């Protein structure tokens, strides 16, 4: 007999809206004396114009650097005193902040988020200091050849839509943006009627709502920002990009145009990805920490089992607008990228012709299990509630499992046939230049 609740975990979520337009989602969960608070904003790197790439992410950083009522050096320690953690992230559609701590810290968590929404300091010196931190973050990413390749492939596969530029921004924009650029972006997007506050955990709904009203109720509504994007024109031929850098290992990345989460193709695409590379689930915050079940997946058997690649992974992510379906391969030592590419594309062509009923059934079982695994904490559940509310809209998240279960074999075949085509793909190679990086490991040593 199971100990866990029979009801789906999204049951029992209550939603409210303050007079200033702030959406509030509350899910009581009393399995541990913990509460997770997330504040989501409908702003991401797609909302950035020329010369300002990376501004959303930089703004996120600035919102850890003091507010009118939380001096810069006192932000640290507010939730830590209750055993809490806090963090935030920015991606193409959204920016979010979180705290998870003991239940006695609810007021402190709400206070921090209310301050962030309305009272950021944006001290010019702090903005300058953070510029180099962010450039350091970018450089850290550039140390990773797979990330370098991903940036190149994304910018090649997407030509018009703002999804084409990396969330962290292009380096010249990071060097030239000003404090006023940051503050202007903050003021435009950080308003209650552009945000969703999610609270999950050991709270009483009525009580926590009173607290929310007290912390956020006086923040004035703002003019909702217009989110303009350029629509991506259809791709009419294969694109290729090759990166050559010092390194030891070769990588291959394939990108196809993926449906946006609200499109009918989305769930068939999720199932198709599970058939090709194993099911990942749909939680950006937690899923990547768990490897997918993929030993029987088509691309795993086609390239890893044949010794051509040491790893393969696929990614289809719920986004507001059409983004990319990518498949990434690590070439096994000694394997030529051309041979790996040929085997991978051949396996994809086979899938287009013949995904079968058994594969689809297995993929759906895997996805059902992943949806359970990815809700294993108040933090992860709060992420899911806020993510789908922000990126897609109300009502989407509770239907996830039903939407996956209703996908048919014909839909999977159809989406494979229409979307995994040669003329709509981008092929990226990372070719390592071995001459210098693989040189003698120690250049200098000194004992003082």
């Amino acid at each position, binding site marked *: 007999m199971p100990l866990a609740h029979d009801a789906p975990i999204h049951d029992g979520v209550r939603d409210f809206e303050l007079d200033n337009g702030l959406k509030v989602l509350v899910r009581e969960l009393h399995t541990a004396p913990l509460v997770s608070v997330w504040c989501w904003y409908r702003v991401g790197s797609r909302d950035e114009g020329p010369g300002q790439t990376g501004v959303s992410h930089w703004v996120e950083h600035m919102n850890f650097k003091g507010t009118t009522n939380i001096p810069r050096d006192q932000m640290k320690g507010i939730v830590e005193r209750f*055993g809490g953690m806090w963090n935030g992230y920015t991606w193409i559609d959204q920016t979010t902040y979180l705290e998870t701590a003991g239940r006695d810290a609810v007021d402190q968590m709400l206070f921090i988020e209310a301050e962030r929404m309305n009272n950021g300091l944006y001290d010019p010196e702090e903005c300058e*200091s953070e510029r*180099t931190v962010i450039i350091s973050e970018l450089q850290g990413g550039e140390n990773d050849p797979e990330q370098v390749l991903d940036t190149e492939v994304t910018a090649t596969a997407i030509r018009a839509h703002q999804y084409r530029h990396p969330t962290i921004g292009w380096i010249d924009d990071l060097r030239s943006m000003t404090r006023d650029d940051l503050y202007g972006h903050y003021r435009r997007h950080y308003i209650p009627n552009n945000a969703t506050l999610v609270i999950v955990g*050991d709270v009483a709904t009525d009580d926590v709502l009173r607290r929310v009203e007290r912390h956020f109720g006086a923040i004035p509504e703002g003019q909702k920002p217009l989110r303009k994007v350029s629509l991506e024109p259809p791709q009419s031929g294969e694109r290729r990009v090759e990166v050559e850098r010092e390194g030891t*290992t070769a990588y291959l990345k394939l990108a196809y145009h993926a449906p946006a989460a609200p499109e009918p193709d989305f769930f068939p695409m999720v199932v198709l990805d599970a058939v090709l590379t194993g*099911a990942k689930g749909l939680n950006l915050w937690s899923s990547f920490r768990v490897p997918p079940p993929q030993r029987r997946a088509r691309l795993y058997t086609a390239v890893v089992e044949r010794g051509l690649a040491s790893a393969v992974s696929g990614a289809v992510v719920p986004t507001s607008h059409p983004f990319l379906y990518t498949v990434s391969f690590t070439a096994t030592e000694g394997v030529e990228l051309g041979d790996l590419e040929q085997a991978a594309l051949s396996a994809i062509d086979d899938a287009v012709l013949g995904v079968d009923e058994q594969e689809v059934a297995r993929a759906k079982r895997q996805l059902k299990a992943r949806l359970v695994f990815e809700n*294993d*904490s108040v933090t992860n559940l709060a992420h899911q509630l806020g993510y789908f509310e922000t990126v897609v809209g109300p009502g989407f998240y509770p239907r996830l499992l039903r939407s996956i279960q209703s996908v048919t074999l014909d839909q999977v075949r159809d989406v494979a046939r229409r979307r995994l085509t040669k003329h709509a793909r981008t092929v990226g190679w990372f070719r390592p230049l071995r001459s210098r990086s693989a040189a003698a*490991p120690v250049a200098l*040593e000194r004992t003082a």
Partner: protein
Amino acid sequence: MTITTASSGLSPLKAVLSNGAVVIAQETSMTPAVTISAVFRAGSMYEPAELAGLAYLTGRVMDRGTERRKAAAVAQELDDRGVSLKISTNRHNLAVSATCLAEDFEDVLDIVLDVARSPVFPDEEITKRRSEAITAVRQDEDNPAVRAVEGLLALLYGPSHPYGRSVKGRAEILDRITRSDIVQFHSTRVVPSSLSLAIVGDVYAEQAIERSRAQLDGWGTSPIPRVDLPAVPTAIARRQRSIAMPGKAQSDIAYGFTTIPRLDFRYYAYWMMNNILGQFGLGGRLADNVRERQGMAYYTYSSFDPAPAQAPLIIRAGVDPANVRRAIAAIDHEVDKLGAEGPTEQELSETRDFLVGSIPRLLETNQSIATFLQLAEEFQLGLDFDRRLPAVLQHVTLDEVRSAARETLHTSRASVVVAGPHEDFV
């Protein structure tokens, strides 16, 4: 309305089987899922130095066919249930773990224990996984963070201590490891008397233990050969090492010391000292200086993990190649200051509140509970360790933490390794 919150303390059941295997089970009710974690004391510290990478390669091949299941059957049974079996190897342990739906618990437990107990190590699988392992070693060679940390551990412990060697070994060694080496390592080390099996989740604890007992029945064991670790070298001078990685964008700094084993009575004072130095908030005093005040790094922190031997305390930072010297000077400053003066009363109080308050958060997921219980078992801390821990931390004094800092944090005895495209800094 009265709200009842589940008790924050764990209430695990434990059984020690006649063949020496320890089974611990903990019920949870957040999701209808179960985590199964079989940890064997079979990490790289138990492999011969000339076969560095043997434990890692053994782990990579273990789940590729058993006496009862071909590799394809293992794959099919796992994939059909949405389960990915994870086999991980570190310096101390080799762990086989999986999370499954509660309804699949008995089937998946059977697979996990079958893989651990009866692998057949087919030659063709060894060939394939060896290539993958060598590729992973090559990827590490291209990763400044890994190069810096491995370089630091080599400096701190030297080649004769297993902490000084990479878990994955080297390509040329992996190339010459034979099936017989793997079979021998498995039969000697992956045995019931080195096993701690944790089952955490939506399953009755008694049933989980009985099921495990039935599965492990008949797996005989002989005593595990004892491994005496060589003495950890004492640093008497500062050592610095630069690893040139042209073409990279950022330099990675690994800076550290050797400290104490987990069972040393000073452990909790060291733990709190490390929290103050490089953990509290977004990275303790180190992050306040290197990141927040000087804007030099996206990440800087220190780590200090429990270990049977003298664990390393490792300070890390990723910085612009032009800032390597300045970042090391900032780290030196914080190390010197904390070493000489110790923390303030307020820092100690904040850190204590944080560590005590974070216990429920650390015991929230099935996987994190399993990890906690197995660590408690490894160091014989007791089934009630989560309940005792707050009082233990409350009793640590400011003088004890100051002593920990004074004993460890000396810039003149630090080892520093930097990997990246920087100009020489030594």
